[in-house]
């Protein structure tokens, strides 16, 4: 019997037991659905986050004090002047700025708000490519050098603090300090940033003048292009180590490295969840095997008839194998559709871009046919090996 005939016979077998075939498929459907949801969300989410990270942090790197440093940590380990010198001497660096951030309460005439305060130099604005002036102006190098008590507010924050009133030229209070609002800005937010508080930016020299032991928490740099990231990072590390006479005291990390680490982490997580989801697929496969065994027993007589009429072992084996593979493939197809549907719904509510993981679709189909063959082989072989005399006598 050729393949098409076997295929038709198998489809007839499935069709004859519609309800049972659907229930059997259910196990595969659930298994494939969960695998697809997990991998689609994992892979798609990862890709979406990477795109965001690239938009915000292309060619950037950060400098911190090394966590595992053996040197003594001092407040002047990194200074504003270091960034100025580095910006001048390194051709690989486009921008390099110091950055201190803290969470504070800002008080306006209308309201008090919790704010993420960033202190940096004027170059900070150039580095943040998505930051745009809304009203007034941003602070300048002069404002910074003069340690002026000025502040630039996120537009939405200004509206909270001042209501309908124009905030420009008005004052806000931060503890016992009073700062003049010189401008507002809008900024494209990092989509996956969980922080919901508003931002405000002040000159770092002013901010440091308020500290008892003035220090810079972090240096942020941006290389002129992708190829310059490594050399820029090298130069920064070398310069700081030499200048401050400290070995292995600084840690420089590019956005790319952070991204790689993030990807590795989410990749591992996705894999673990896929394996857990995959267990349900195996359970579904066992269900297929179980039903196929029942089917073989139930159709013992049919197998006997077919053998008496000239079916070879191979004909019977293929007939049952195709049956289980078809059940698994249809289950797999429905599972893929369900999985992508559920993943899209979740993605929609999680505000992720539409995600589609072709990989997981191919893997799902591969897996369901493999499960069909693996779990179908034993029952099919059992059917093929039936003794025709016994099978014909079976009631």
């Amino acid at each position: 019997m050729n393949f098409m005939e076997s295929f038709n016979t198998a489809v007839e077998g499935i069709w004859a037991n519609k309800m049972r075939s659907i229930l059997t498929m259910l196990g595969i459907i659930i298994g494939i659905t969960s695998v697809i949801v997990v991998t689609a969300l994992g892979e798609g989410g990862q890709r979406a986050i990477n795109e965001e990270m690239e938009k915000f942090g292309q060619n950037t790197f950060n400098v911190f004090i090394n966590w595992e440093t053996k040197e003594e940590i001092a407040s002047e380990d990194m200074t504003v002047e270091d960034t100025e010198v580095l910006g001048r001497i390194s051709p690989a660096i486009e921008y390099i700025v110091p950055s201190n951030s803290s969470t504070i309460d800002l008080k306006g005439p209308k309201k008090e708000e919790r704010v993420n305060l960033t202190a940096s130099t004027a170059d900070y604005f150039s580095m943040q490519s998505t930051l745009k002036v809304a009203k007034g102006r941003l602070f300048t190098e002069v404002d910074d050098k003069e340690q002026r008590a000025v502040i630039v507010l996120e537009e939405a924050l200004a509206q909270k603090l001042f209501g309908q009133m124009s905030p420009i030229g008005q004052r806000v209070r931060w503890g016992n300090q009073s700062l003049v609002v010189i401008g507002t800005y809008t900024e494209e937010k990092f989509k996956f940033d969980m922080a919901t508080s508003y931002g405000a930016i002040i000159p770092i020299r002013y901010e440091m003048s308020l500290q008892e032991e003035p220090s810079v928490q972090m240096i942020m740099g941006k290389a002129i292009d992708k190829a310059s990231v490594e050399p820029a990072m090298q130069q920064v590390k070398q310069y700081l180590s030499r200048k401050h006479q400290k070995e292995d005291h600084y840690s420089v990390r590019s956005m790319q490295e952070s991204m790689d680490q993030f990807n590795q982490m989410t990749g591992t997580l996705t894999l673990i969840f896929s394996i857990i989801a995959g267990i349900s697929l195996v359970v579904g496969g066992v269900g297929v095997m179980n039903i196929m065994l029942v089917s073989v027993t139930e159709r013992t007589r049919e197998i006997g008839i077919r053998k008496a009429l000239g079916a070879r072992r191979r004909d019977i084996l293929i007939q049952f194998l195709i049956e289980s593979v078809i059940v698994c493939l249809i289950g797999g197809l429905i599972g893929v559709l369900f999985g992508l549907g559920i993943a899209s719904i979740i993605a929609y509510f999680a505000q992720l871009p539409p995600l589609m993981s072709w990989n997981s679709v191919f893997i799902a189909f591969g897996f369901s046919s493999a499960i069909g063959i693996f779990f179908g082989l034993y029952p099919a072989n059992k059917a093929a090996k039936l003794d025709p005399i016994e099978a014909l006598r079976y009631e």
Partner: protein
Amino acid sequence: MLHVEGLTKAYKTGDTVLPILKGVSLLVEQGEFVAIMGPSGSGKSTFMNMLGCLDRPDSGSYMLDGIEVSSLKDTELAVVRNQKIGFVFQSFNLLARSSSLHNVELPMMYANVSRSERRKRATEALKRVGLAERMDHKPTQLSGGQKQRVAIARALVNKPAILLADEPTGNLDSRSGVEIMAMFQELHAQGVTIILVTHELDIAQHAERIVTFKDGVIIRDEKVTERIFSKPSDEVIVT
């Protein structure tokens, strides 16, 4: 056509070996109509399974249509069953979910006959047994006699060397039984070689020759002198 020589078969049940066939020899010529009789346990069913290539003898030879089949492998036996043997069973053994036409097509599917050729031959075979009107009926929509006629059409469709009928009237009322026996006689008249297993003498008497089994050997092999001729109608003629 069919030549069996010194066939033996024994079954093992636990430690005891139970001999079923103890050296059976039989020669059936082309076009013969032979009935095999014997009480249950006489070995006639086992012998039938051997003739039908559903089982292999422990020793002895079995030549069917020029082929020594006793030493063939499973796959080759399947081909022999498909090409050389037509089965008619007591319990019809039709595929319950398939139409008459599909049931008759089945042996040709295993013979890799093309779809259109299959359709043509199956239709002819069903016409030959008088079921042209019932081609699309499933077995549940047919009477016992009609089911057996579908089975006969299926048995003949690959033009086998022998037709093996195992108690073909056992599940039928007497009227249908007569009809089926009439059909066998008609086929015999057309030159089909038929071997019929039965335990009823008046069924066996439709054949030309009766072979009787007892305790695993043939004890009698004789021509039928008082042959019964059935007509498809109710009348039974005894000559």
